[in-house]
Protein backbone atom coordinates (compact mmCIF):
# COMPACT_ATOMS: atom_id res chain seq x y z
CA UNK A 1 0.00 0.00 0.00
CA UNK A 2 1.25 3.46 -0.88
CA UNK A 3 1.96 5.94 1.87
CA UNK A 4 0.04 8.72 0.20
CA UNK A 5 -2.31 8.47 -2.74
CA UNK A 6 -3.92 11.35 -4.57
CA UNK A 7 -6.41 10.67 -7.33
CA UNK A 8 -7.88 13.51 -9.38
CA UNK A 9 -7.34 15.99 -6.61
CA UNK A 10 -8.49 19.53 -7.35
CA UNK A 11 -8.31 22.69 -5.28
CA UNK A 12 -10.56 25.51 -6.40
CA UNK A 13 -10.87 29.10 -5.28
CA UNK A 14 -14.23 30.11 -6.67
CA UNK A 15 -14.02 29.30 -10.38
CA UNK A 16 -10.26 29.18 -10.39
CA UNK A 17 -8.65 25.76 -10.36
CA UNK A 18 -5.36 26.31 -8.58
CA UNK A 19 -4.85 22.55 -8.68
CA UNK A 20 -6.56 20.66 -11.46
CA UNK A 21 -7.18 16.93 -11.13
CA UNK A 22 -3.73 15.80 -10.16
CA UNK A 23 -2.94 12.20 -9.27
CA UNK A 24 0.20 10.79 -7.74
CA UNK A 25 1.37 8.53 -4.97
CA UNK A 26 4.34 8.39 -2.64
CA UNK A 27 5.86 5.18 -1.30
CA UNK A 28 7.64 4.71 1.99
CA UNK A 29 11.32 5.57 1.70
CA UNK A 30 10.80 7.32 -1.61
CA UNK A 31 11.83 10.83 -2.61
CA UNK A 32 9.32 12.42 -4.95
CA UNK A 33 10.37 15.67 -6.56
CA UNK A 34 7.80 18.24 -7.63
CA UNK A 35 9.00 20.96 -9.98
CA UNK A 36 7.40 23.80 -11.89
CA UNK A 37 7.43 27.57 -12.07
CA UNK A 38 5.89 29.77 -9.39
CA UNK A 39 2.13 29.65 -9.49
CA UNK A 40 1.97 26.08 -10.78
CA UNK A 41 0.04 24.89 -7.74
CA UNK A 42 2.85 23.06 -5.95
CA UNK A 43 2.22 24.70 -2.58
CA UNK A 44 -1.56 24.60 -2.80
CA UNK A 45 -1.54 20.88 -3.59
CA UNK A 46 0.70 20.13 -0.60
CA UNK A 47 -1.38 22.30 1.68
CA UNK A 48 -4.44 20.33 0.63
CA UNK A 49 -2.72 17.12 1.71
CA UNK A 50 -2.06 18.75 5.09
CA UNK A 51 -5.68 19.90 5.34
CA UNK A 52 -4.61 23.53 5.39
CA UNK A 53 -6.73 24.97 2.61
CA UNK A 54 -8.84 27.74 4.10
CA UNK A 55 -12.12 29.16 2.99
CA UNK A 56 -12.93 29.93 0.21
CA UNK A 57 -10.66 27.17 -1.15
CA UNK A 58 -12.30 23.81 -1.79
CA UNK A 59 -10.57 20.45 -2.04
CA UNK A 60 -12.12 17.67 -4.10
CA UNK A 61 -10.64 14.30 -4.97
CA UNK A 62 -11.65 10.88 -6.18
CA UNK A 63 -9.19 9.66 -3.57
CA UNK A 64 -6.96 11.22 -0.94
CA UNK A 65 -5.64 8.53 1.33
CA UNK A 66 -2.77 8.19 3.75
CA UNK A 67 -1.83 4.58 4.52
CA UNK A 68 -5.28 3.51 3.45
CA UNK A 69 -7.11 6.08 5.58
CA UNK A 70 -9.41 8.46 3.75
CA UNK A 71 -8.21 11.92 4.73
CA UNK A 72 -11.23 13.70 3.30
CA UNK A 73 -13.79 11.50 5.02
CA UNK A 74 -12.35 11.62 8.52
CA UNK A 75 -13.29 14.20 11.13
CA UNK A 76 -11.27 17.31 11.77
CA UNK A 77 -9.92 16.05 15.12
CA UNK A 78 -8.82 12.73 13.73
CA UNK A 79 -7.13 14.40 10.80
CA UNK A 80 -5.26 16.73 13.12
CA UNK A 81 -3.84 13.66 14.85
CA UNK A 82 -2.22 12.62 11.58
CA UNK A 83 -1.21 16.14 10.61
CA UNK A 84 2.01 17.08 12.30
CA UNK A 85 2.77 13.57 13.47
CA UNK A 86 2.49 11.05 10.60
CA UNK A 87 2.57 13.71 7.91
CA UNK A 88 4.73 16.73 8.59
CA UNK A 89 5.55 19.73 6.47
CA UNK A 90 8.29 22.31 6.37
CA UNK A 91 7.78 25.64 4.70
CA UNK A 92 9.65 27.97 2.45
CA UNK A 93 10.31 30.83 4.83
CA UNK A 94 11.68 29.58 8.15
CA UNK A 95 12.10 33.09 9.53
CA UNK A 96 8.39 33.86 9.42
CA UNK A 97 7.08 30.35 10.06
CA UNK A 98 8.25 30.12 13.64
CA UNK A 99 6.15 32.13 16.09
CA UNK A 100 8.18 35.21 17.10
CA UNK A 101 6.68 35.21 20.59
CA UNK A 102 7.83 31.80 21.76
CA UNK A 103 11.17 30.16 22.30
CA UNK A 104 12.55 27.40 20.11
CA UNK A 105 12.19 24.94 22.99
CA UNK A 106 8.57 25.87 23.55
CA UNK A 107 7.71 25.34 19.91
CA UNK A 108 9.37 21.93 19.70
CA UNK A 109 7.90 20.74 22.96
CA UNK A 110 4.47 21.90 21.88
CA UNK A 111 4.54 19.47 18.96
CA UNK A 112 5.89 16.63 21.11
CA UNK A 113 3.36 17.22 23.85
CA UNK A 114 0.43 17.34 21.46
CA UNK A 115 1.17 14.04 19.77
CA UNK A 116 3.22 12.00 22.22
CA UNK A 117 2.87 13.40 25.71
CA UNK A 118 5.35 12.79 28.51
CA UNK A 119 6.54 14.72 31.50
CA UNK A 120 8.39 17.99 31.38
CA UNK A 121 11.80 16.50 31.79
CA UNK A 122 11.38 13.85 29.10
CA UNK A 123 10.02 16.44 26.68
CA UNK A 124 12.93 18.74 27.37
CA UNK A 125 15.36 15.89 26.87
CA UNK A 126 13.75 14.79 23.62
CA UNK A 127 13.73 18.36 22.28
CA UNK A 128 17.44 18.68 22.93
CA UNK A 129 18.05 15.35 21.17
CA UNK A 130 16.13 16.60 18.17
CA UNK A 131 18.11 19.83 18.00
CA UNK A 132 21.30 17.79 18.17
CA UNK A 133 20.02 15.52 15.43
CA UNK A 134 19.48 18.42 13.03
CA UNK A 135 22.96 19.72 13.74
CA UNK A 136 22.29 22.72 15.94
CA UNK A 137 25.34 23.55 18.06
CA UNK A 138 24.85 24.12 21.80
CA UNK A 139 21.26 22.81 21.72
CA UNK A 140 20.68 23.37 25.46
CA UNK A 141 21.19 27.10 25.13
CA UNK A 142 19.29 27.26 21.82
CA UNK A 143 16.23 25.92 23.58
CA UNK A 144 15.63 29.32 25.17
CA UNK A 145 16.42 31.33 22.03
CA UNK A 146 13.71 33.26 20.23
CA UNK A 147 13.35 32.86 16.46
CA UNK A 148 14.66 36.36 15.74
CA UNK A 149 17.92 35.36 17.37
CA UNK A 150 18.49 32.59 14.82
CA UNK A 151 19.83 32.79 11.29
CA UNK A 152 17.72 31.53 8.39
CA UNK A 153 19.64 28.26 8.21
CA UNK A 154 19.27 27.68 11.95
CA UNK A 155 15.55 28.46 11.79
CA UNK A 156 15.13 25.96 8.98
CA UNK A 157 16.95 23.35 11.09
CA UNK A 158 14.58 24.07 13.95
CA UNK A 159 11.62 23.63 11.62
CA UNK A 160 13.05 20.33 10.46
CA UNK A 161 13.53 19.27 14.08
CA UNK A 162 9.88 20.04 14.79
CA UNK A 163 8.79 18.25 11.61
CA UNK A 164 10.59 15.03 12.50
CA UNK A 165 9.76 15.30 16.21
CA UNK A 166 6.95 12.77 16.00
CA UNK A 167 8.67 10.43 13.54
CA UNK A 168 6.52 11.21 10.50
CA UNK A 169 6.17 8.63 7.79
CA UNK A 170 5.78 11.32 5.19
CA UNK A 171 7.58 14.66 5.07
CA UNK A 172 6.59 17.41 2.67
CA UNK A 173 9.27 20.03 2.12
CA UNK A 174 7.97 23.05 0.21
CA UNK A 175 10.98 24.84 -1.26
CA UNK A 176 12.92 24.33 1.98
CA UNK A 177 15.98 26.21 0.75
CA UNK A 178 14.59 28.96 -1.47
CA UNK A 179 14.79 31.58 1.27
CA UNK A 180 18.31 30.63 2.35
CA UNK A 181 21.84 31.61 1.36
CA UNK A 182 23.31 29.49 -1.40
CA UNK A 183 26.04 28.25 0.93
CA UNK A 184 23.47 27.01 3.44
CA UNK A 185 21.18 25.38 0.88
CA UNK A 186 23.33 22.31 0.29
CA UNK A 187 23.70 21.69 4.03
CA UNK A 188 19.96 21.76 4.58
CA UNK A 189 19.32 19.41 1.65
CA UNK A 190 22.00 17.01 2.93
CA UNK A 191 20.35 17.04 6.32
CA UNK A 192 16.93 16.36 4.85
CA UNK A 193 18.13 13.50 2.66
CA UNK A 194 20.12 11.98 5.53
CA UNK A 195 17.11 12.05 7.81
CA UNK A 196 14.91 10.67 5.07
CA UNK A 197 17.23 7.71 4.61
CA UNK A 198 17.78 7.12 8.31
CA UNK A 199 14.08 7.09 9.04
CA UNK A 200 12.95 5.66 5.72
CA UNK A 201 10.41 8.42 5.37
CA UNK A 202 8.58 9.27 2.21
CA UNK A 203 9.76 12.72 1.15
CA UNK A 204 7.97 15.09 -1.15
CA UNK A 205 10.54 17.64 -2.20
CA UNK A 206 9.15 20.73 -3.87
CA UNK A 207 11.81 22.86 -5.48
CA UNK A 208 12.86 25.09 -8.33
CA UNK A 209 16.18 23.34 -8.41
CA UNK A 210 16.03 20.77 -11.19
CA UNK A 211 19.62 19.71 -10.73
CA UNK A 212 18.84 18.88 -7.13
CA UNK A 213 15.80 16.82 -8.08
CA UNK A 214 17.83 14.95 -10.68
CA UNK A 215 20.33 14.12 -7.96
CA UNK A 216 18.16 13.07 -5.04
CA UNK A 217 14.65 12.22 -6.27
CA UNK A 218 13.51 8.77 -7.35
CA UNK A 219 10.54 10.06 -9.25
CA UNK A 220 9.57 13.48 -10.42
CA UNK A 221 6.36 15.33 -11.17
CA UNK A 222 6.36 18.38 -13.39
CA UNK A 223 3.50 20.77 -12.70
CA UNK A 224 2.21 23.58 -14.85
CA UNK A 225 -0.80 25.81 -14.14
CA UNK A 226 -2.28 23.40 -11.62
CA UNK A 227 -1.81 20.29 -13.72
CA UNK A 228 0.73 17.52 -13.83
CA UNK A 229 2.18 17.73 -17.33
CA UNK A 230 4.77 15.01 -16.99
CA UNK A 231 5.78 12.39 -14.47
CA UNK A 232 8.14 9.48 -14.27
CA UNK A 233 11.46 8.25 -12.89
CA UNK A 234 13.66 11.29 -12.28
CA UNK A 235 16.58 10.10 -14.37
CA UNK A 236 14.37 9.30 -17.36
CA UNK A 237 12.33 12.48 -17.24
CA UNK A 238 15.44 14.59 -17.18
CA UNK A 239 17.44 12.66 -19.79
CA UNK A 240 14.59 12.37 -22.26
CA UNK A 241 11.81 14.81 -21.39
CA UNK A 242 8.60 14.16 -23.28
CA UNK A 243 6.81 17.39 -22.53
CA UNK A 244 7.90 20.66 -24.14
CA UNK A 245 7.52 22.35 -20.75
CA UNK A 246 9.96 19.96 -19.07
CA UNK A 247 12.32 20.43 -21.96
CA UNK A 248 12.12 24.19 -21.54
CA UNK A 249 12.70 23.98 -17.79
CA UNK A 250 15.78 21.84 -18.39
CA UNK A 251 16.99 24.13 -21.13
CA UNK A 252 16.89 27.08 -18.79
CA UNK A 253 19.43 25.41 -16.52
CA UNK A 254 22.81 27.12 -16.87
CA UNK A 255 24.78 23.93 -17.50
CA UNK A 256 22.55 22.68 -20.31
CA UNK A 257 22.34 26.10 -21.87
CA UNK A 258 26.12 26.18 -22.07
CA UNK A 259 26.56 22.81 -23.78
CA UNK A 260 23.62 22.33 -26.09
CA UNK A 261 23.07 24.02 -29.38
CA UNK A 262 19.39 24.67 -28.81
CA UNK A 263 18.86 27.26 -26.11
CA UNK A 264 15.28 27.91 -25.41
CA UNK A 265 13.43 29.81 -22.77
CA UNK A 266 9.67 30.02 -22.65
CA UNK A 267 8.31 33.49 -23.13
CA UNK A 268 5.60 34.61 -20.72
CA UNK A 269 4.51 33.37 -17.30
CA UNK A 270 2.18 30.76 -15.80
CA UNK A 271 -1.40 31.86 -16.54
CA UNK A 272 -3.18 33.06 -13.42
CA UNK A 273 -6.78 33.16 -12.38
CA UNK A 274 -8.06 35.29 -15.25
CA UNK A 275 -5.93 34.37 -18.22
CA UNK A 276 -6.11 30.61 -18.58
CA UNK A 277 -6.27 29.73 -22.28
CA UNK A 278 -8.55 27.12 -23.84
CA UNK A 279 -7.03 23.87 -25.03
CA UNK A 280 -3.61 22.97 -23.67
CA UNK A 281 -2.67 25.44 -20.93
CA UNK A 282 0.87 25.70 -22.25
CA UNK A 283 -0.19 26.35 -25.86
CA UNK A 284 0.36 30.15 -25.85
CA UNK A 285 3.94 29.66 -24.70
CA UNK A 286 4.77 26.38 -26.45
CA UNK A 287 7.09 26.54 -29.47
CA UNK A 288 5.54 23.38 -30.94
CA UNK A 289 1.89 24.29 -30.47
CA UNK A 290 -0.44 23.33 -33.31
CA UNK A 291 -4.01 24.33 -34.03
CA UNK A 292 -5.20 21.33 -32.08
CA UNK A 293 -3.20 22.37 -29.02
CA UNK A 294 -5.08 25.69 -28.90
CA UNK A 295 -8.48 23.99 -29.05
CA UNK A 296 -8.35 20.57 -27.42
CA UNK A 297 -7.25 19.77 -23.90
CA UNK A 298 -4.64 17.03 -24.22
CA UNK A 299 -5.26 13.83 -22.25
CA UNK A 300 -2.58 12.25 -20.12
CA UNK A 301 -0.98 9.44 -22.08
CA UNK A 302 1.51 6.66 -21.50
CA UNK A 303 1.78 4.09 -18.69
CA UNK A 304 1.04 5.25 -15.11
CA UNK A 305 4.74 5.21 -14.33
CA UNK A 306 5.62 7.54 -17.19
CA UNK A 307 2.89 9.96 -18.16
CA UNK A 308 2.80 13.02 -20.35
CA UNK A 309 -0.05 15.42 -21.03
CA UNK A 310 0.63 16.63 -24.54
CA UNK A 311 -0.73 16.30 -28.09
CA UNK A 312 2.73 16.24 -29.54
CA UNK A 313 5.06 14.64 -26.99
CA UNK A 314 8.76 14.79 -27.73
CA UNK A 315 10.76 11.86 -29.02
CA UNK A 316 14.16 10.61 -27.87
CA UNK A 317 15.86 13.45 -29.74
CA UNK A 318 13.70 16.15 -28.22
CA UNK A 319 11.62 16.83 -31.34
CA UNK A 320 7.83 16.71 -31.32
CA UNK A 321 6.19 13.57 -32.72
CA UNK A 322 3.76 14.64 -35.41
Amino acid at each position, binding site marked *: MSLLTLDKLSVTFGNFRAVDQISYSVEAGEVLGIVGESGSGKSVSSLSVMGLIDHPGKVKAAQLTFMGQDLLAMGEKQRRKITGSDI*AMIFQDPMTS*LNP*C*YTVGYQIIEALK*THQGGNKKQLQQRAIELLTLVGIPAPETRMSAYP*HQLSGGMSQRVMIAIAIACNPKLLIADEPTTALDVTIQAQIIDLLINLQQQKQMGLVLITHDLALVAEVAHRVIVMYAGQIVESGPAAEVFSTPKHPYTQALLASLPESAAGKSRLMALPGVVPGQFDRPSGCLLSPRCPYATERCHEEVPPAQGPLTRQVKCHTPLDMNGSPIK
Partner: protein
Amino acid sequence: MIGFILRRLLQAVLVMLTISFASFVIQGKLGDPVTQMVGQNVTLAERAQLTESLGLNDPLLQQYARYLSDALSGDLGVSYYHKQATLAVIGDRLPATLELSFCALLIVLLTATPLGVFAAIRPRHILSRLIVIVSTLGLSVPIFVVAMFLVYFFAVEWQWLPSFGRGETHLLFGFWSSGLVTKDGLQHLLLPSVSLAFVLAPIFVRLIRAQMLEELDSDYVRYAWSKGIPAHRVYFVHALKNTMLPVITVGGIQVGTLIAYTILTETIFQWPGMGLLFMEAVSRVDAPLISAYLIVVGLIFVLINTLVDLIYLWVNPRVRIPGYGQ
Protein backbone atom coordinates in the same frame (compact mmCIF):
# COMPACT_ATOMS: atom_id res chain seq x y z
CA MET B 1 17.61 48.00 26.61
CA ILE B 2 18.86 50.50 29.19
CA GLY B 3 19.29 52.98 26.35
CA PHE B 4 15.70 52.40 25.30
CA ILE B 5 14.38 53.03 28.79
CA LEU B 6 16.50 56.15 29.19
CA ARG B 7 15.32 57.51 25.88
CA ARG B 8 11.74 56.77 26.81
CA LEU B 9 12.14 58.62 30.11
CA LEU B 10 13.72 61.58 28.35
CA GLN B 11 10.74 61.72 26.02
CA ALA B 12 8.42 61.66 29.01
CA VAL B 13 10.24 64.59 30.56
CA LEU B 14 10.06 66.58 27.31
CA VAL B 15 6.33 65.96 27.00
CA MET B 16 5.81 67.06 30.59
CA LEU B 17 7.82 70.23 29.98
CA THR B 18 5.64 71.07 27.00
CA ILE B 19 2.47 70.45 28.97
CA SER B 20 3.73 72.47 31.88
CA PHE B 21 4.50 75.40 29.59
CA ALA B 22 0.99 75.26 28.16
CA SER B 23 -0.47 75.17 31.67
CA PHE B 24 1.76 78.02 32.71
CA VAL B 25 0.50 80.15 29.85
CA ILE B 26 -3.12 79.28 30.62
CA GLN B 27 -2.64 80.01 34.27
CA GLY B 28 -1.08 83.38 33.65
CA LYS B 29 -3.05 84.57 30.65
CA LEU B 30 -6.53 83.21 31.23
CA GLY B 31 -8.37 86.13 32.77
CA ASP B 32 -6.59 88.62 34.97
CA PRO B 33 -5.19 86.99 38.12
CA VAL B 34 -5.21 90.26 40.03
CA THR B 35 -8.85 90.93 39.34
CA GLN B 36 -9.64 87.32 40.21
CA MET B 37 -7.95 87.79 43.58
CA VAL B 38 -9.10 91.20 44.68
CA GLY B 39 -12.08 92.04 42.52
CA GLN B 40 -12.77 95.42 40.93
CA ASN B 41 -12.91 97.75 43.92
CA VAL B 42 -9.26 98.46 44.73
CA THR B 43 -7.17 101.42 43.63
CA LEU B 44 -4.90 101.25 40.64
CA ALA B 45 -1.85 101.72 42.89
CA GLU B 46 -2.84 98.75 45.01
CA ARG B 47 -3.32 96.68 41.86
CA ALA B 48 0.10 97.65 40.57
CA GLN B 49 1.67 96.73 43.87
CA LEU B 50 -0.03 93.35 43.89
CA THR B 51 1.02 92.74 40.30
CA GLU B 52 4.60 93.52 41.23
CA SER B 53 4.56 91.35 44.37
CA LEU B 54 3.07 88.43 42.43
CA GLY B 55 6.03 88.71 40.08
CA LEU B 56 3.79 89.32 37.09
CA ASN B 57 6.10 92.01 35.77
CA ASP B 58 9.12 89.70 35.57
CA PRO B 59 10.26 88.36 32.19
CA LEU B 60 8.13 85.44 30.95
CA LEU B 61 10.91 82.89 31.18
CA GLN B 62 11.67 83.85 34.75
CA GLN B 63 8.00 83.48 35.65
CA TYR B 64 7.97 80.08 33.95
CA ALA B 65 11.05 78.97 35.86
CA ARG B 66 9.37 79.97 39.10
CA TYR B 67 6.20 78.14 38.07
CA LEU B 68 8.22 75.02 37.26
CA SER B 69 10.18 74.98 40.47
CA ASP B 70 6.95 75.51 42.45
CA ALA B 71 5.35 72.68 40.49
CA LEU B 72 8.26 70.37 41.19
CA SER B 73 7.90 71.02 44.89
CA GLY B 74 4.22 70.14 44.62
CA ASP B 75 2.79 73.65 44.52
CA LEU B 76 0.48 74.23 41.58
CA GLY B 77 -1.17 77.30 42.98
CA VAL B 78 -4.39 77.97 44.83
CA SER B 79 -7.82 77.56 43.33
CA TYR B 80 -9.68 80.86 43.12
CA TYR B 81 -12.97 79.24 43.89
CA HIS B 82 -12.08 76.56 46.41
CA LYS B 83 -9.49 78.75 48.19
CA GLN B 84 -7.37 75.62 48.60
CA ALA B 85 -4.22 74.25 47.03
CA THR B 86 -5.26 73.02 43.58
CA LEU B 87 -3.45 69.73 44.04
CA ALA B 88 -5.43 69.03 47.21
CA VAL B 89 -8.68 69.82 45.41
CA ILE B 90 -7.77 67.51 42.53
CA GLY B 91 -6.47 64.84 44.92
CA ASP B 92 -9.89 64.75 46.57
CA ARG B 93 -11.54 64.02 43.25
CA LEU B 94 -8.90 61.66 41.85
CA PRO B 95 -10.23 58.39 43.34
CA ALA B 96 -13.67 58.92 41.81
CA THR B 97 -12.23 59.35 38.32
CA LEU B 98 -9.74 56.51 38.62
CA GLU B 99 -12.38 54.09 39.85
CA LEU B 100 -14.69 55.08 37.01
CA SER B 101 -11.95 54.72 34.37
CA PHE B 102 -10.75 51.46 35.83
CA CYS B 103 -14.22 49.90 35.78
CA ALA B 104 -14.85 51.15 32.27
CA LEU B 105 -11.55 49.72 31.05
CA LEU B 106 -12.27 46.44 32.76
CA ILE B 107 -15.63 46.24 31.00
CA VAL B 108 -13.96 47.14 27.70
CA LEU B 109 -11.30 44.48 28.12
CA LEU B 110 -13.77 41.79 29.14
CA THR B 111 -16.13 42.50 26.25
CA ALA B 112 -13.90 43.72 23.42
CA THR B 113 -11.39 40.88 23.58
CA PRO B 114 -13.84 37.99 23.21
CA LEU B 115 -15.94 39.87 20.66
CA GLY B 116 -12.97 40.92 18.55
CA VAL B 117 -11.40 37.47 18.69
CA PHE B 118 -14.67 35.74 17.86
CA ALA B 119 -15.30 38.02 14.89
CA ALA B 120 -11.83 37.15 13.60
CA ILE B 121 -11.87 33.39 14.00
CA ARG B 122 -15.46 32.95 12.75
CA PRO B 123 -15.53 35.68 10.12
CA ARG B 124 -18.59 34.37 8.32
CA HIS B 125 -20.70 33.68 11.39
CA ILE B 126 -23.83 35.79 11.61
CA LEU B 127 -22.75 37.02 15.05
CA SER B 128 -19.43 38.20 13.65
CA ARG B 129 -21.18 40.29 11.03
CA LEU B 130 -23.34 41.73 13.76
CA ILE B 131 -20.26 42.54 15.83
CA VAL B 132 -18.66 44.33 12.89
CA ILE B 133 -21.79 46.33 12.11
CA VAL B 134 -22.53 47.28 15.70
CA SER B 135 -18.94 48.25 16.45
CA THR B 136 -18.79 50.38 13.32
CA LEU B 137 -22.01 52.15 14.28
CA GLY B 138 -20.81 52.35 17.87
CA LEU B 139 -17.80 54.37 16.77
CA SER B 140 -20.06 57.19 15.72
CA VAL B 141 -22.60 57.21 18.54
CA PRO B 142 -21.92 60.13 20.89
CA ILE B 143 -21.60 59.25 24.54
CA PHE B 144 -24.51 61.42 25.66
CA VAL B 145 -26.85 59.44 23.42
CA VAL B 146 -25.68 56.19 25.01
CA ALA B 147 -25.94 57.73 28.45
CA MET B 148 -29.40 59.11 27.73
CA PHE B 149 -30.68 55.69 26.69
CA LEU B 150 -29.17 53.98 29.70
CA VAL B 151 -30.52 56.60 32.08
CA TYR B 152 -33.93 56.56 30.45
CA PHE B 153 -34.40 52.82 30.81
CA PHE B 154 -32.41 51.84 33.88
CA ALA B 155 -32.97 54.91 36.01
CA VAL B 156 -36.23 56.46 34.88
CA GLU B 157 -38.36 53.73 33.32
CA TRP B 158 -37.37 50.73 35.45
CA GLN B 159 -35.80 52.57 38.36
CA TRP B 160 -33.15 49.91 38.85
CA LEU B 161 -30.10 52.10 39.09
CA PRO B 162 -29.28 55.60 40.30
CA SER B 163 -28.36 58.05 37.54
CA PHE B 164 -26.22 60.60 39.27
CA GLY B 165 -23.63 61.05 41.97
CA ARG B 166 -21.30 58.55 43.50
CA GLY B 167 -23.46 57.14 46.27
CA GLU B 168 -22.03 55.92 49.53
CA THR B 169 -18.24 55.86 49.80
CA HIS B 170 -15.79 54.56 52.35
CA LEU B 171 -12.41 55.95 53.21
CA LEU B 172 -9.74 53.33 52.50
CA PHE B 173 -6.16 53.53 53.83
CA GLY B 174 -7.02 56.92 55.29
CA PHE B 175 -6.96 58.81 51.98
CA TRP B 176 -8.84 56.95 49.27
CA SER B 177 -12.59 57.44 49.26
CA SER B 178 -13.84 54.36 47.47
CA GLY B 179 -17.23 53.55 46.02
CA LEU B 180 -16.15 50.04 45.17
CA VAL B 181 -16.71 48.68 48.65
CA THR B 182 -20.35 49.58 49.18
CA LYS B 183 -23.36 48.21 47.36
CA ASP B 184 -24.71 51.71 46.89
CA GLY B 185 -21.38 52.86 45.49
CA LEU B 186 -21.24 50.00 43.00
CA GLN B 187 -24.80 50.68 41.87
CA HIS B 188 -23.92 54.30 41.24
CA LEU B 189 -20.82 53.23 39.33
CA LEU B 190 -22.68 51.00 36.91
CA LEU B 191 -24.36 53.42 34.52
CA PRO B 192 -21.43 55.84 34.12
CA SER B 193 -18.85 53.10 33.63
CA VAL B 194 -21.03 51.21 31.15
CA SER B 195 -21.59 54.42 29.17
CA LEU B 196 -17.89 55.12 29.13
CA ALA B 197 -17.14 51.53 28.10
CA PHE B 198 -19.70 51.76 25.31
CA VAL B 199 -17.71 54.52 23.70
CA LEU B 200 -14.32 52.84 24.01
CA ALA B 201 -15.25 49.21 23.31
CA PRO B 202 -15.94 49.62 19.57
CA ILE B 203 -12.44 50.99 19.02
CA PHE B 204 -10.96 47.95 20.69
CA VAL B 205 -13.29 45.40 19.12
CA ARG B 206 -12.31 46.65 15.68
CA LEU B 207 -8.66 46.85 16.53
CA ILE B 208 -8.50 43.35 18.02
CA ARG B 209 -10.51 41.88 15.16
CA ALA B 210 -8.33 43.49 12.48
CA GLN B 211 -5.09 42.53 14.19
CA MET B 212 -6.25 38.98 14.87
CA LEU B 213 -7.32 38.54 11.24
CA GLU B 214 -3.89 39.63 10.15
CA GLU B 215 -2.17 37.23 12.52
CA LEU B 216 -4.42 34.34 11.46
CA ASP B 217 -3.25 34.91 7.90
CA SER B 218 0.42 34.79 8.85
CA ASP B 219 3.00 32.14 8.06
CA TYR B 220 3.50 31.14 11.67
CA VAL B 221 -0.21 30.46 12.18
CA ARG B 222 -0.32 28.29 9.06
CA TYR B 223 2.74 26.53 10.40
CA ALA B 224 1.06 26.08 13.79
CA TRP B 225 -1.90 24.42 12.05
CA SER B 226 0.51 22.12 10.23
CA LYS B 227 1.79 20.88 13.58
CA GLY B 228 -1.63 19.43 14.25
CA ILE B 229 -2.07 21.23 17.55
CA PRO B 230 -5.64 21.83 18.76
CA ALA B 231 -7.50 24.82 17.31
CA HIS B 232 -7.76 26.59 20.65
CA ARG B 233 -3.99 26.59 20.96
CA VAL B 234 -3.59 28.04 17.48
CA TYR B 235 -6.04 30.81 18.31
CA PHE B 236 -5.28 31.60 21.91
CA VAL B 237 -1.63 30.67 22.30
CA HIS B 238 -0.19 31.51 18.90
CA ALA B 239 -2.35 34.21 17.33
CA LEU B 240 -3.71 36.00 20.39
CA LYS B 241 -0.38 36.87 21.94
CA ASN B 242 0.83 38.48 18.73
CA THR B 243 -2.53 40.24 18.43
CA MET B 244 -2.39 41.78 21.88
CA LEU B 245 1.07 43.29 21.49
CA PRO B 246 0.00 46.13 19.19
CA VAL B 247 -3.27 46.40 21.08
CA ILE B 248 -1.36 47.24 24.25
CA THR B 249 0.38 50.12 22.49
CA VAL B 250 -2.81 51.50 20.97
CA GLY B 251 -4.47 51.02 24.34
CA GLY B 252 -1.90 53.36 25.86
CA ILE B 253 -2.65 56.00 23.27
CA GLN B 254 -6.38 55.62 23.83
CA VAL B 255 -5.86 56.76 27.41
CA GLY B 256 -6.15 60.24 25.95
CA THR B 257 -9.58 59.38 24.55
CA LEU B 258 -10.50 57.89 27.88
CA ILE B 259 -9.58 61.07 29.73
CA ALA B 260 -11.59 63.18 27.31
CA TYR B 261 -14.60 60.95 27.71
CA THR B 262 -14.40 60.88 31.49
CA ILE B 263 -14.98 64.62 31.39
CA LEU B 264 -18.18 64.09 29.41
CA THR B 265 -19.32 61.09 31.42
CA GLU B 266 -18.75 62.80 34.73
CA THR B 267 -20.62 65.87 33.58
CA ILE B 268 -23.58 63.83 32.38
CA PHE B 269 -23.80 61.72 35.53
CA GLN B 270 -22.69 64.45 37.94
CA TRP B 271 -19.88 62.11 38.96
CA PRO B 272 -17.73 64.02 41.45
CA GLY B 273 -14.40 63.31 39.77
CA MET B 274 -11.66 65.31 38.14
CA GLY B 275 -13.54 65.67 34.88
CA LEU B 276 -16.52 67.32 36.52
CA LEU B 277 -14.14 69.44 38.57
CA PHE B 278 -12.48 70.53 35.34
CA MET B 279 -15.80 71.50 33.76
CA GLU B 280 -16.68 73.50 36.86
CA ALA B 281 -13.27 75.16 36.82
CA VAL B 282 -13.73 76.11 33.17
CA SER B 283 -17.13 77.65 33.77
CA ARG B 284 -15.70 79.63 36.70
CA VAL B 285 -12.53 80.56 34.81
CA ASP B 286 -10.58 79.12 37.72
CA ALA B 287 -7.26 79.38 35.87
CA PRO B 288 -4.96 77.76 38.49
CA LEU B 289 -7.30 74.80 38.78
CA ILE B 290 -7.56 74.38 35.00
CA SER B 291 -3.80 74.46 34.60
CA ALA B 292 -3.25 72.08 37.52
CA TYR B 293 -5.77 69.69 35.97
CA LEU B 294 -3.84 69.78 32.71
CA ILE B 295 -0.61 68.99 34.50
CA VAL B 296 -2.07 66.13 36.51
CA VAL B 297 -3.83 64.62 33.51
CA GLY B 298 -0.72 65.08 31.37
CA LEU B 299 1.31 63.32 34.02
CA ILE B 300 -1.14 60.43 34.17
CA PHE B 301 -1.07 60.16 30.38
CA VAL B 302 2.71 60.17 30.20
CA LEU B 303 3.07 57.72 33.08
CA ILE B 304 0.64 55.25 31.55
CA ASN B 305 2.23 55.47 28.14
CA THR B 306 5.69 54.95 29.54
CA LEU B 307 4.39 52.04 31.56
CA VAL B 308 2.72 50.57 28.48
CA ASP B 309 5.98 50.81 26.57
CA LEU B 310 7.81 49.05 29.36
CA ILE B 311 5.18 46.31 29.46
CA TYR B 312 5.51 45.96 25.70
CA LEU B 313 9.24 45.67 26.12
CA TRP B 314 8.75 43.03 28.73
CA VAL B 315 6.28 40.80 26.86
CA ASN B 316 7.68 41.15 23.37
CA PRO B 317 10.80 39.04 22.95
CA ARG B 318 11.76 40.78 19.71
CA VAL B 319 12.42 44.03 21.51
CA ARG B 320 14.23 42.38 24.37
CA ILE B 321 17.58 42.15 22.66
CA PRO B 322 20.70 43.86 23.83
CA GLY B 323 21.38 47.06 21.94
CA TYR B 324 17.87 47.38 20.55
CA GLY B 325 17.23 50.61 18.72
CA GLN B 326 20.81 51.55 17.99
